């Protein structure tokens, strides 16, 4: 749809490369350590089906520019949603004001070393796909979920699609652009039986075309999974309370890694010394069975990017290798201040936010064990296969994530489904208790959104089946 981000912004807003150069040069260069201009144009669309009909449709356009100037540890950031040269000059003046008292230094020219990737060029981006086909998809989802079980009372299916065009320019003359498609199909089902109501949900997507949902009738699986979970939960018993052996299923339960270690390894917290992982590089923070990577280079994944929001090519970064802490997730500022390399993890929600270190797709590599044998190894425990959200206190290391589908394990067998319960642990310690790692690594279906400091970005997670010897389970059954 859009061949070239540079040309796009030039045609639309008259921002020629020389105009941008002049802006950054005259306003910023030579007075700060780093400066950049970020231009963004975003169109998003949402279609919602409920009560059997698509009754809600919306389309939103956002555009704007952010100008950033950094000097030492200081960042000045100004943004405007009117992209015009006078507005950008004003933003640059405001961003620079922050550096006014700082020492004068030459602009540091950053050598990115790596070339941007080409991870999601689509012949037909999801936003451009025919509306009639999208409505048909949602209707099919509704019918499939309702057909699953007569106890299905309500189906809410939504399809969101967006396309974001970004262009990043620095005074060192580097400009890099990216066109980022993203789509997500979500299904929520309410089931009812004898006055008891329960909810189930499933979904997925990525930087993929609409046809992604049609491959092997993926849409049908999303629909029936949501229905199955809602109906299953109608029979769920109270979850146990206390410390238990926990087996996590493959895929989305990888949210464990995101909360337990991912956030704590973001460069900003470690530079500031406020993370429970600060100063622990080279130390053992997990069982030797555990290797965790953050990989922004996986084709078409929700958490992937060709370049991060500072223009650095994304990478495959090993965070924990055989239990040893190997690396942090870095943006330009924190990499510079810590004397490390940027890792392609400088991300932002939109032009209205300065970038900071964020995850992309975070997962644990597969191990040797047969998943069924892992379950058989547990005399009494919890088997959790689906989760809602999670959260972490970076400084104390305490993290939670909440199961939405879980079962008791009794004598090595999966038995009764239990109600959702929150699991709580301590990041630097929880992964040391991993005693089994399955050979069944799966990445999630493409639904993750990570919040940090008020900014949301799409991410992915992944996990093989694992056994954790002792985690606190927040049920009600004492």
């Amino acid at each position, binding site marked *: 749809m859009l061949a070239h981000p540079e040309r796009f912004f030039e045609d639309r807003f008259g921002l020629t490369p020389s105009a941008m150069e002049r802006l950054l040069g005259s306003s910023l260069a030579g007075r700060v350590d780093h400066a950049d201009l970020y231009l963004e144009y975003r169109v998003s669309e949402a279609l919602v089906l409920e009560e059997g009909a698509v009754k809600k449709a919306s389309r939103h356009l956002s555009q704007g520019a952010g100008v950033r100037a950094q000097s030492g540890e200081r960042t000045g950031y100004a943004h405007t*949603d009117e992209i015009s040269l006078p507005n950008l000059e004003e933003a640059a003046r405001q961003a620079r004001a922050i550096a006014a008292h700082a020492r004068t230094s030459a602009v540091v020219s950053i050598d990115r070393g790596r070339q941007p990737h080409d991870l999601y060029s689509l012949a037909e981006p999801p936003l451009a796909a025919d509306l009639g086909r999208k409505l048909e998809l949602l209707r099919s989802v509704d019918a499939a979920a309702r057909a699953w079980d007569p106890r299905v009372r309500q189906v809410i299916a939504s399809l969101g699609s967006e396309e974001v065009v970004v262009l990043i320019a620095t005074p060192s003359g580097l400009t890099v652009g990216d066109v980022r498609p993203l789509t997500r199909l979500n299904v929520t089902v309410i089931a009812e039986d004898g006055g008891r109501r329960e909810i189930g949900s499933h979904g997925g997507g990525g930087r993929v075309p609409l046809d992604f949902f049609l491959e092997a009738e993926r849409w049908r699986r999303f629909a029936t999974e949501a229905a199955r979970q809602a109906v299953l939960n109608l029979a769920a018993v109270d979850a146990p309370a206390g410390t238990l052996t926990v087996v996590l299923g493959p895929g989305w339960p990888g949210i464990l890694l995101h909360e337990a270690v991912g956030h704590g390894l973001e460069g900003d917290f470690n530079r500031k010394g406020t993370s429970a992982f600060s100063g622990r590089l080279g130390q053992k923070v997990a069982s030797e069975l555990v290797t965790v990577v953050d990989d922004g280079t996986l084709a078409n994944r929700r958490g992937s990017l060709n370049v991060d929001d500072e223009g650095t090519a994304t990478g495959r970064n090993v965070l924990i290798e055989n239990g040893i802490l190997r690396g942090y997730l870095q943006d330009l500022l924190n990499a510079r201040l810590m004397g490390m390399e940027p890792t392609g993890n400088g991300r932002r929600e939109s032009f209205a936010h300065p970038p900071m270190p964020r995850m992309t797709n975070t997962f644990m590599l597969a191990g040797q064990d047969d998943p069924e044998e892992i379950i058989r190894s547990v005399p009494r425990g919890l088997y959790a296969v689906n989760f809602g959200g999670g959260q972490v206190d970076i400084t104390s290391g305490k993290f939670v994530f909440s199961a939405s589908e879980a079962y008791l394990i009794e004598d090595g067998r999966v038995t009764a489904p239990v109600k959702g319960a929150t699991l709580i642990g301590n990041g630097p310690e929880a992964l040391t208790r991993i005693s089994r790692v399955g050979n069944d690594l799966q990445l999630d279906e493409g639904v993750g959104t990570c919040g940090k400091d008020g900014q949301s970005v799409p991410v992915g997670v992944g996990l093989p089946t694992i056994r954790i010897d002792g985690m606190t389970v927040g049920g009600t059954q004492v």
Partner: protein
Amino acid sequence: MLDLLADLLTRATTKGATAADAFVVEAQAFSALVRLGQVDTVKHAREQRLALRVFVGQSVAAASTSDLSRESVGRLVEDAVSLARITSPDELAGLPDAAELAHPPLPDLDLADPTGHDLSPEEKIDLARRAEQAALDFDPRITNSEGGDFSDHRACYAYATTHGFAGEYRASSFSLSVAPVAASGGEMQRDAWYHVTRKRVALDPPEEIGRKAAERALRRLGGRSVKTAEVPVIFDRETAASLLRHLAGAASGPSLYRGASFLLDRLGQSVAAPSVTIVDDATRPGGLGSRPFDGEGLSVRRTVLVDKGVLASYLLDTYTGRKLGLPSTHHAARDGSGVSVSTTNLYLAAGESSPEALIRSVTQGLYVTELIGFGVNGVTGDYSRGVVGLWIENGELAYPVEEITIAGNLLDMFHAVEGVGNDLVFRDRTASPTLLIGRMVVAGS
């Protein structure tokens, strides 16, 4: 701004809309983060968004843009009308009856601070610096900090409909927060304190916010788990307010008509102990949640949600009201993304007991100061969250606890309220006094 909306609505009608409403916001924001005494990040922002909702017969669609150029506004109208042509008709869709619209003069709720924004960036940075410094100076164990943050925001909102409503208002907000880190023997704990107001002069002194933040971080040092048990649980004001938000979510129209609420079909029934009265008051002068009209142009009012334990009202806009066969309770909220239902100033009415007396009444129990995670199921009311707090022994706060959870069901929890504090303060859009809940399961070691 009202001229812009009138023009937009005319264009929508010309393109085939049978009814429409439009909303615009223009905002300016500034924030300054000071960390360890040095300026860390300063942000300036100008934002605008124009949103349109159109009805073509009984079909509806919405569109919005941050680009107010004539071309883009034309595109906005085209997008909205063409989307409305593909959505399914809904016989209940539509604007509220014209007779229900708020009549001028709209109330002046004193939401803007005409002079408060006049501070220079240096003065704003200094407020953040003073707040953080007070935390750093409070105790030698305060060794680090995520910083002190001052921010201010001013916006002008306007809303108009094709059937005759037009209103606009200005609002301000100011906030000051500090997040210090306390350390001792290799352990680190972070906590924070903040204040948000509509008038800058009403902000608590920076030093007070900093000291309070330091005290909160320090009292977490030495946190440990406890044995799994069923005990009384006291929620401090901030964590108690989160329980009100969960209840309000279940009482809101969209959750109800989808059958996704544990309060479904409970109007007029007991949903809490008789000591619990919960009110949503959109008319509070200077209130952080106040507004002079709701998101569909209806007048604002005070709504009793729970009256002495009985569910007295839902929270509805026009559409969700029609779905449930009830009138709107004037809780529509409008923003760039569309119409939703929201509370305004939601609070639980103060009781008689001092927080100290509530703590003294507990032999063994938990005092909750922070909740983490998303373990709240609005369909069933099932509740399970991570907790930071203090353990109560023989009526006294004995030691800090962490890496534990509390679990129960929200309906059972509200019914089990055994004590309501006398310490209600409107610090946020949602406010609660300290609450004592008779029994909950605490999971730990």
